């Protein structure tokens, strides 16, 4: 068996194929004023789903605003906002079923909220306290939840891409009626793991949705210094993967594309690539200041394409939402988030034993010995170890 490419297309003169030959259209459903295009095919959406999506966006807007402020006040060490990309993340998460695995990069807290991660759980992770599911070991925003099928985030970029291929292959072998969605940014798509993951998924027919948030920047690097081709989408075609590009600021377009991608991945046992064109409205992280590499004018232009506002206008046009309800919802979440901050920061840090547990399934002898040595050290210098001194059971 050799390859399945179209070898019958022959030329007798040197003819070069350029990227424009693969002009991939962008799916758009909602116009800026919140009315659908006349010929747009709507996604499957009813009032309950529509409002759940909006509720998620409102919560994440509030969470991002408050926790960025909390970082500025020194109450948490680090933060990353999702602002500008709420539609890309929430719209895709809303197209999935609860048993589908989500493997995120780090800017997808909206997907986790959509799944039901509580305000308290968000706080416990960010404050690295004893109630954090991750036992306070990772930096803020590195969320994970087995119960919600949301794989724990890690900092190394792109590593989750081939893992998603393997996870989805495992779901297929186990006969689970489920897919895996894998989020990553356009910068991460330059990593070797992007190539490895898409190729592995295509060759081994894994039911995985690769979802690229192309938001224009990888920290300070604009996308024209990230790649010379036509974005990420044409690469999917090159790997033999069904591919679609969507307006990432259009909630209904993202929802429609992902609903269909899920159906295709599950029924045909194959990967799908979605490239969502969006814009990172905020700084890369709390450690970054974008004024050093892009203009206020550029940001202002994109603020006019606010994905949450566009979606809200659609809801109001449908008669499913009102400005009064909107104000009340935001007020409720502001109070809830503030209250949760105050509770979480008073929860004690994880116990000293968590320093060496979970490195392996059981604590090996050498780690038990090392923990004992730390205990002796804390007894000698208790004032140097305020997180643990005097708190051992």
């Amino acid at each position, binding site marked *: 068996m050799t390859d399945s490419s179209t070898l019958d297309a022959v030329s007798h003169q040197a003819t070069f194929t350029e990227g424009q030959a693969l002009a991939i259209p962008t799916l758009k459903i909602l116009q800026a004023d919140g009315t659908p295009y006349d010929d747009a095919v709507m996604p499957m959406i009813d009032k309950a789903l529509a409002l759940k999506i909006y509720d998620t966006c409102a919560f994440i807007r509030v969470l991002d605003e408050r926790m960025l402020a909390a970082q500025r006040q020194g109450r948490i060490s680090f933060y990353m906002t999702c602002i500008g990309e709420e539609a890309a993340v929430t719209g895709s998460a809303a197209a999935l079923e609860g048993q589908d695995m989500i493997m995120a990069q780090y800017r997808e807290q909206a997907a986790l909220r959509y799944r039901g991660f509580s305000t308290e759980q968000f706080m416990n992770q960010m404050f690295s306290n004893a109630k954090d599911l991750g036992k306070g070991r990772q930096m803020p925003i590195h969320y994970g939840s087995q119960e919600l099928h949301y794989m724990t985030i*890690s900092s190394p970029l792109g590593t989750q891409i081939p893992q998603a291929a393997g*996870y989805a292959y495992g779901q297929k072998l186990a006969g689970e009626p489920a897919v895996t969605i894998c989020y990553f940014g356009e910068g991460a798509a330059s990593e*070797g793991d992007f190539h490895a993951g898409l190729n592995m998924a295509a060759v081994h027919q894994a039911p995985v949705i690769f979802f690229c948030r192309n938001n224009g920047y990888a920290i300070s690097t604009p996308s024209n210094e990230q790649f010379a081709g036509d974005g990420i989408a044409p690469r999917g075609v090159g790997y033999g993967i069904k591919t679609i590009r969507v307006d990432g600021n259009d909630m209904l377009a993202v929802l429609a594309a992902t609903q269909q991608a899920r159906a295709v991945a599950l029924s045909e046992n194959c990967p799908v690539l979605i490239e969502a064109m969006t814009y990172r409205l905020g700084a890369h992280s709390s450690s970054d200041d974008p004024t050093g590499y892009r203009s206020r004018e550029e940001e202002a232009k994109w603020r006019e394409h606010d994905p949450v506002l566009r979606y809200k206008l659609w809801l109001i046009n449908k008669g499913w939402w009102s400005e009064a309800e909107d104000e009340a919802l935001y007020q409720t979440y502001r109070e809830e988030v503030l209250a949760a901050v105050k509770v979480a920061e008073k929860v004690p840090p994880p116990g000293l034993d968590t320093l060496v547990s979970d490195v392996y399934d059981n604590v090996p002898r050498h780690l038990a010995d090392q923990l004992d040595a730390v205990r002796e050290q804390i007894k000698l210098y208790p004032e140097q170890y305020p997180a643990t001194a005097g708190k051992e059971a």
Partner: protein
Amino acid sequence: MAQMNLLQAINNALDIAMADDERVLCFGEDVGHFGGVFRATAKLQDKYGKSRCFNTPLTEQGILGFANGLAAQGHRPVAEIQFADYIFPAFDQIVNESAKFRYRSGNEFNVGGLTIRTPYGGGIAGGHYHSQSPEAYFTQTPGLKVVVPRNPYQAKGLLLASIRDDNPVVFFEPKRIYRASVGEVPEEDYQLPLSEAEVVKEGSDITLLGWGAQMELIEKAAQRAESLGISCEIIDLRTLLPWDVDTVASSVAKTGRLLISHEAPLTGGFAGEIAATIQDRCFLHLESPIARVCGLDTPYPLMLEQEHMANEHKIFEAIKASVNF
């Protein structure tokens, strides 16, 4: 019991593991129908189907990324890296991902089902990229287990234990003796414990410690030393991480001398870790400096392989020097 060489023992272990647990999968480059470039996975695809034993695209980071995902999902992947020299493209997936999966998630997720098999070591005219012994890069990584068998019986028992262990294991196979090492191997299912060294031969004058293919050279040197009246205690470490400090320390407390030999370069090699730990544990028992007989601190050379390697003659001289110190 059956006569098996080391490759056949590995093939037999994989066969048993796949028959025993349908979550076990074998994959890597050329692992499928062809059965691997060394034939370690021969006939497994015929027996268990293409979905459980298959070729992958030629991408080591892809193989390990895919394996991590499969293991996180609940399968027990046995991923093959064709030569240990080519494990480095997967280093990030192994060190930053596999090793930290359970810890970083607070045990919400783990890749405990993962085993990475890879042929390692020199002595086969393999030059720079078919001879390396990269175990020390991995012993520096909490969360991994590192295992090296020395003969067919060990290989089968340790591989079965590695596949069933609930932690990611890097399993280095001594390819120089893949076919040369032949021995009696039980045909039934059995496991040998991880993190336990084996005292291969008891002695009273010096402890000789190694792993993998190096054990054969250590045993030859020991025989020559015995003929001079030097009684050697020989230990196969078998698992390098977490390693069996107690067995080595109690041996050195008895003999008062320790020689460690490995194929990998001296500087930063795992012998350094052992030497430091044993001088800490056995300071008052040591009668001579701990000796390390290792590869030179050079890339693995082609023509001057014999000069480079920690061969039987170098070990023999080091035994004499230690005893006569």
